[in-house]
């Protein structure tokens, strides 16, 4: 678990991973230049790293630990970025496109319905393609934008993992989550870690972690 100053979903995400895998995630501070010796998953949590200064995720993307994250991603290690984590991965160019201010200006914080577009990835193996799931969002800058060629490529290569069923933030083509070319990096604005036990009001996020446990754990 990568932790930046201003991360605030790191403990929720760690709890979800603990709950599903029984393993204790290592919390890695942004100033570290090396990651632990053995790990199967890197999680980049939500929050407001560096106070969203300059652009959401822009400062965090330049932090020392991100060089190690990039190297691990290049080796094929699974990397999950949620919300601010997605913004960080986009700013670090591990994923294409950018997350802009929500089209409606407002911070959006509510449960949203998603369509699982791709059930072939390590992250989505426990879902059915076309399935509707409900997962909460909480963001100000979730408006995914990329040039039309990039969007076409994402669609054509099955790299749109999740799509909003109704407009939430103005995202191009309703994109809520995307995969990198190799399929080992997922960035998504909705928070699967907030839907992992019955008390959360649903468990649709839990299968993302269960799928990961099966495929990479």
């Amino acid at each position, binding site marked *: 678990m990568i932790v930046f100053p201003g991360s605030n979903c790191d403990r929720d995400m760690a709890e979800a991973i603990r709950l599903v895998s029984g393993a204790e995630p290592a919390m890695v501070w942004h100033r570290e230049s090396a990651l632990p010796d053995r790990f199967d998953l890197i999680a980049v949590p939500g929050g407001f790293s560096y106070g969203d200064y300059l652009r959401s995720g822009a400062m965090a993307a330049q932090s020392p630990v991100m060089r190690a994250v990039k190297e691990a991603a290049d080796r094929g290690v699974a990397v999950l970025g949620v919300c601010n984590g997605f913004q960080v991965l986009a700013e670090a160019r591990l994923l294409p496109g*950018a997350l*802009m*201010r*929500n*089209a409606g*200006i407002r911070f959006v914080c509510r449960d949203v319905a998603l369509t699982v577009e791709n059930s072939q990835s390590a992250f989505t193996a426990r879902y059915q393609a076309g399935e509707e799931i409900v997962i909460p969002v909480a963001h100000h800058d979730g*408006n995914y934008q990329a*040039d039309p060629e990039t969007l076409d490529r994402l669609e054509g290569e099955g790299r749109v993992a999740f799509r909003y069923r109704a407009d939430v933030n*103005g995202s191009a083509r309703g994109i809520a989550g995307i995969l990198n070319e190799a399929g080992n990096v997922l960035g998504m604005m909705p928070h699967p870690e907030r839907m992992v036990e019955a008390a959360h009001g649903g468990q649709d996020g839990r299968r993302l972690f269960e799928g990961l446990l099966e495929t990479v754990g």
Partner: protein
Amino acid sequence: MKIRIYVTLKNGVLDPQGKAIHHALEGLGFEGVKGVRAGKLIELEVDDSTGDDALDEMCRKLLANTVIENYRIERGEKAA
């Protein structure tokens, strides 16, 4: 030496903040505003020896997100 870096959204990129400012201006009764685009001005104080390449790299690596933004570098007066 003072450097001014103007970061603006690329043409065609929707600017929700500009739109909100536009609505607010209309709400204040200002007429004839056809559009508003909001950007950023970043001022740097750098060594006089700082080259164009270095400034360009600063913009590309951090100051602007070239997926959605353009940047323009303006060199100011050299330090006295």
